[in-house]
């Protein structure tokens, strides 16, 4: 049991869905719909910043949000870490290829100019802030809540005859089966290992071939599960999403007003100090 949990833990930690960390701070009490909306708007607001003051303001607001989660700094570092290569690569491109302003250094097609330095720093800050603020969202909201929030945001699409209820049911069933399928994958891998399969050795082609004995049983298992589940759903009276009531509902709280005011203040400050 302990071993199974450990294995699942390591598998799960690589994907975002396992990254929810339970807690009880201010951000946790917010409605997921509010969090999702404000996260998206915050990312857009980052592009409003265009001078040192506005960048300082938005960085400050982002760090306030991080502090409000009450989580350790390590969590956010782990969010940034996998993308650090990309951040540096983009910043360096800006640094060496951006021309204009005072030129400090020049060689062949490379040059370092005052514009370049400025832009490299801005890009670096933008990238980091986007990752940090989305980490705030994903670590403090359960996947299920994110799915609920997405359903709510998609609701206006009903006008265009998009089957939002069905999509929501699909998302919630998909999320519910993520751990089950992980368990199943692990079981299949162990079963194949116990008769000699090797998943970590050999070249690219050999490894790709080793995946087949995992994938085929997993597909079959998924289809069988789907058939069983649909039979069970039907026998419990499911006949399409029309006329269904909802057990799980989301409630706006005063914390959502606080975060909205926080965001409006941020945008206001950005607009005031922004240069045109």
């Amino acid at each position, binding site marked *: 049991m302990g071993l199974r949990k450990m294995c699942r833990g390591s598998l799960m930690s690589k994907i975002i869905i396992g990254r929810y960390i339970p807690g009880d701070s201010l951000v946790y009490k917010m409605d997921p719909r509010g969090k999702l909306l404000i996260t998206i708007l915050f990312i857009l607001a980052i592009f409003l910043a265009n001078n040192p003051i506005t960048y300082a303001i938005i960085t400050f607001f982002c760090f306030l949000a991080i502090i409000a989660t009450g989580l350790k700094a390590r969590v956010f570092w782990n969010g940034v870490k996998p993308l650090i290569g990309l951040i540096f690569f983009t910043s360096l491109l800006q640094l060496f290829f951006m021309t204009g302003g005072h030129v400090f250094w020049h060689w062949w097609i490379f040059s370092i100019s005052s514009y370049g330095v400025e832009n490299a720093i801005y890009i670096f800050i933008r990238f980091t802030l986007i990752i940090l603020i989305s980490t705030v969202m994903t670590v403090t909201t359960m996947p299920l809540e994110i799915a609920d929030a997405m359903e709510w945001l998609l609701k206006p699409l009903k006008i265009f005859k998009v089957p939002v209820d069905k999509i929501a049911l699909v998302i919630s069933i998909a999320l519910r089966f993520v751990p089950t399928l992980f368990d199943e994958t692990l079981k299949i891998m162990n079963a194949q290992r116990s008769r000699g399969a090797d998943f970590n050795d050999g070249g690219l082609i050999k490894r790709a071939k080793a995946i087949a004995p995992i994938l085929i049983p997993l597909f079959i298992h998924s289809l069988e599960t789907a058939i069983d589940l649909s*039979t*069970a759903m039907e026998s*419990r009276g499911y006949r399409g999403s029309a006329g269904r009531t909802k057990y799980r509902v989301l409630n706006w709280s005063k914390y959502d007003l606080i975060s909205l005011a926080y965001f409006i203040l941020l945008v206001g400050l950005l607009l005031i100090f922004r240069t045109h």
Partner: protein
Amino acid sequence: MSNDNAIEFKHVKFTYPDSKKAVLKDVNFVVKKGSWTSLIGHNGSGKSTISKLINGLLLPDENSDSKITVLGTNVTAENIWDIREKVGIVFQNPDNQFVGATVGDDVAFGLENRSVPRQEMIKIVRNVLSEVGMLEYIDSEPANLSGGQKQRIAIAGILAVEPQIIILDESTSMLDPSGRKQILKIIIELMKKKQLTVVSITHDIDEANMADSVIVLNDGEIIDQDSPVKIFNKTTMLKQIGLDIPFTNKLILALDKSGVSVPQNLRTKDELKQYLCQLNLKI
């Protein structure tokens, strides 16, 4: 049409669309209201098909004079939804019938389908969860529950919509002995409290032994329906169609072989115990 019959099968034939061989050939049986009926038979004898026919997940062959009546209503394509209101099925695999992302969601699924208002749902969900002893797990996710717990949630989900008939389609076959005992205990309690009719499809002889009536199925035909004591006395018949017999009967057979004959009418566990104790005194 007598009113104390919960389920009636008359000349029911059923063939799966992709096969030529009929799974059920002329099946006739009656389940009394408020009784516990067990359906036994070897693998592939058509037991699960019967459970799916009862609530209209499958419909019998069109060009036959099959007639299925559930609580006075004929099962036809038009009224399967009314039937499903009255019949709840607990399936075999606890993992594959868990719809909701949490326990509460799953129990509420049937209520959501019936457009029950949310406030009522919350009350009902809490009630039925406490009936199966799972109230403290209301926010748990299925990955953190054992198989037995998942089956209890499945029972709660069915109780929530207040059916009159519960079908256990090999519901305990994937559970460990303690999980199995717990589920059966809960079902027996609920059956008494709520006047439920229970149909259990099973390989488990002890589960079949708890029934009021046992139906024996062999290759799509019903070969016997009687009380468990009488059915399990027909050891030769059961062995012929490849079924196991309860421990008591095995013991009687073994005693017979070694020369101790037990009277035909003493077949329950307690009766046998008493008889053997008396025998011991005489010696």
